[in-house]
C-alpha cells in the first residue's frame, strides 16, 4: 500500500472514531479539501458506488475484530467470491434455481470496503444490529396474526407479494442505501437549496430541501419518508422521518428516524454513514458506514414495473402448484 493509502485509511478510521461534529475538523486537518460548488459548499456531486462484499453485520468468525489486515482482506474476498459464485453447478436443484443465472449477471462487487472493516455496522462496537425490542417482536407477530385471519395467502394476488417483487421499492435502494446484488450506484446532484439523491436500483429519486422548511405533517407518510438536509461543516446531513408502516428497515417501525451523513473525504471517496433511531424497535441507535467510491460510468434506468413479467410468472407458478396439490389430494 502506498503512503497515500495509509493516509486515507487513517483519515477514515479517525472519522469513524470521532464524534460526528468533529468529522470536518479531522478531514480538514489533512491536506485534502473537497472542491466547492459555486455557492461555496463541498462538491459531493457525481456517481458513487456502494458495491462491496463486506457484510452488513460482523460474521461470528471476526468477533472482536474490527479491521482486517491486507492479507486477511484478500483471503476473505477470495473465499466469499467462491462461496457466492453463481457459475457453480454443485448443490441441489433447488440451490441451482436460486442461483438463477451465471455470475456475469450479478454485480455485487468483489472487494471489501476500503477501510477493511469487518462489517458495515460500526456502532454498536460489536458490529451487530441490536436485537429487536419486545414491542417490535409483538408488532411483527400481530401483523402475521392479522394476515392469517384475513385468509389471504402469500401468493393470492400481486398485492400479497413483497414491494420489491412488485417494483414499488427495493430494500437496497433505501432510504438508507445498502449494497445489494446489482445496481449499487447512486447519483448526487446539488443546488444551493436542494439535493437530489438518485438511486439506480429501481430508479428512485429523493429530492431533499436544504432550506430548513418544516417537515411534513405527521399524518403524511411516504415509502421513502420525508427528507430534510443541512450542512454540518463539510458534511451533508439528511434526516428522514414520516416513513409508512408498509415498509420497515430491519424491523423498524414508521417512527424510524434516519440520519444520513455524506462527507467527501478524498477525490474519489464519499464517506456515507447513517444512523437508525427507533426506540420502539431498537433498544439503542445503530450506525452503518460505507466508504463509497466514484464510478466512472453513468447510472442506467431501471424501469422495473414496465418490464415486470416476473410477477406474472411467480403468480402463475403458485396457481400451478395449487392445481398440482389439488390433483394430488383427490
Amino acid at each position, binding site marked *: 500500500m502506498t503512503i497515500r493509502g495509509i493516509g486515507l485509511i487513517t483519515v477514515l478510521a479517525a472519522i469513524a472514531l470521532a464524534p460526528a461534529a468533529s468529522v470536518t475538523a479531522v478531514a480538514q486537518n489533512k491536506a485534502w479539501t473537497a472542491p466547492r460548488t459555486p455557492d461555496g459548499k463541498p462538491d459531493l456531486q457525481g456517481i458513487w458506488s456502494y458495491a462491496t462484499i463486506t457484510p452488513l453485520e460482523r460474521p461470528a468468525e471476526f468477533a472482536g475484530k474490527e479491521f482486517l489486515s491486507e492479507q486477511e482482506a484478500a483471503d476473505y474476498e477470495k473465499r466469499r467470491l467462491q462461496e457466492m459464485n453463481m457459475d457453480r453447478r454443485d448443490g441441489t436443484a433447488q440451490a441451482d434455481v436460486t442461483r438463477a443465472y451465471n455470475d456475469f*449477471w450479478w454485480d455485487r462487487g468483489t472487494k471489501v470496503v476500503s477501510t477493511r472493516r469487518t462489517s458495515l455496522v460500526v456502532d454498536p462496537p460489536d458490529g451487530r444490529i441490536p436485537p429487536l425490542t419486545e414491542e417490535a417482536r409483538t408488532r411483527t407477530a400481530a401483523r402475521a396474526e392479522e394476515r392469517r385471519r384475513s385468509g389471504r395467502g402469500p401468493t393470492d394476488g400481486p398485492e400479497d407479494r413483497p414491494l420489491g417483487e412488485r417494483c414499488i421499492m427495493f430494500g437496497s435502494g433505501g432510504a438508507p442505501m445498502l449494497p445489494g446484488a446489482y445496481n449499487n450506484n447512486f447519483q448526487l446532484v446539488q443546488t444551493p437549496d436542494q439535493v437530489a439523491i438518485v438511486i439506480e436500483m429501481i430508479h428512485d429519486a429523493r429530492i431533499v430541501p436544504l432550506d430548513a422548511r418544516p417537515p411534513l405533517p405527521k399524518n403524511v407518510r411516504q415509502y421513502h419518508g420525508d427528507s430534510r438536509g443541512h450542512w454540518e461543516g463539510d458534511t451533508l446531513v439528511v434526516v428522514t422521518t414520516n416513513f409508512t408502516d408498509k415498509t420497515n428497515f430491519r424491523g423498524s417501525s414508521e417512527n424510524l428516524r434516519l440520519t444520513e451523513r455524506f462527507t467527501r473525504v478524498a477525490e474519489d471517496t464519499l464517506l456515507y454513514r447513517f444512523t437508525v433511531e427507533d426506540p420502539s424497535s431498537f433498544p439503542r441507535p445503530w450506525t452503518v458506514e460505507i466508504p463509497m467510491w466514484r464510478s466512472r460510468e453513468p447510472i442506467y434506468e431501471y424501469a422495473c414495473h414496465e418490464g415486470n413479467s416476473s410477477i406474472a410468472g411467480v403468480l402463475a407458478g403458485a396457481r400451478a402448484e395449487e392445481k398440482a396439490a389439488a390433483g394430488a389430494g383427490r
Partner: protein
Amino acid sequence: MRGTTGIALTVGTVLVVATMAAMPLWAHHAFTAEFDSNKPVKLRGVVTKVELINPHSWIHIDVKEPDGKVVSWAIEGGTPNTLFRMGITKNSLPTGTEILVDGYQAKDGSRRANGRDVTLPDGKKVFISGASAAEAPPQQ
C-alpha cells in the same frame, strides 16, 4: 437452423433444503417461485429476439423439437444494467445466433425458462463471468 438436436427434458431428484446458504443478497424475485427445480431443461435454439428490459432481460429462441416442429421459448436473464457495464448490448447476441440454454422451466409449464447457463455450440459461455467493470478501484 444449424445442428439442431432438439430439446432434451430431464427430471432431476428433488432435494428440499430448509435454508439456502447460497442465497444471493437481494434479487428482484424468488426464482424458486417462478421456476421449477423438478423441470431442468436443456434447449438448443436460435435467437429470434433479445429484450434488454428491466427488471429482467429475456432472450427469445426458436427450438426445433424431435418431430421437427419449431416452438418458441423465452429465457429469463438478469438486469440489463449489469450487462451494459460489461459491454453487452442488444447487438451482442444477434438474431439467428444458435445458443444452448441450461436452466429450469417455469412452474406453470409454459415455454419459459431461466437461463442458468447460456452457451454457444462450441461450449463457450455467452455471458462470461469475471471481474466486473463496476469494480472498486485499487486503494489509493
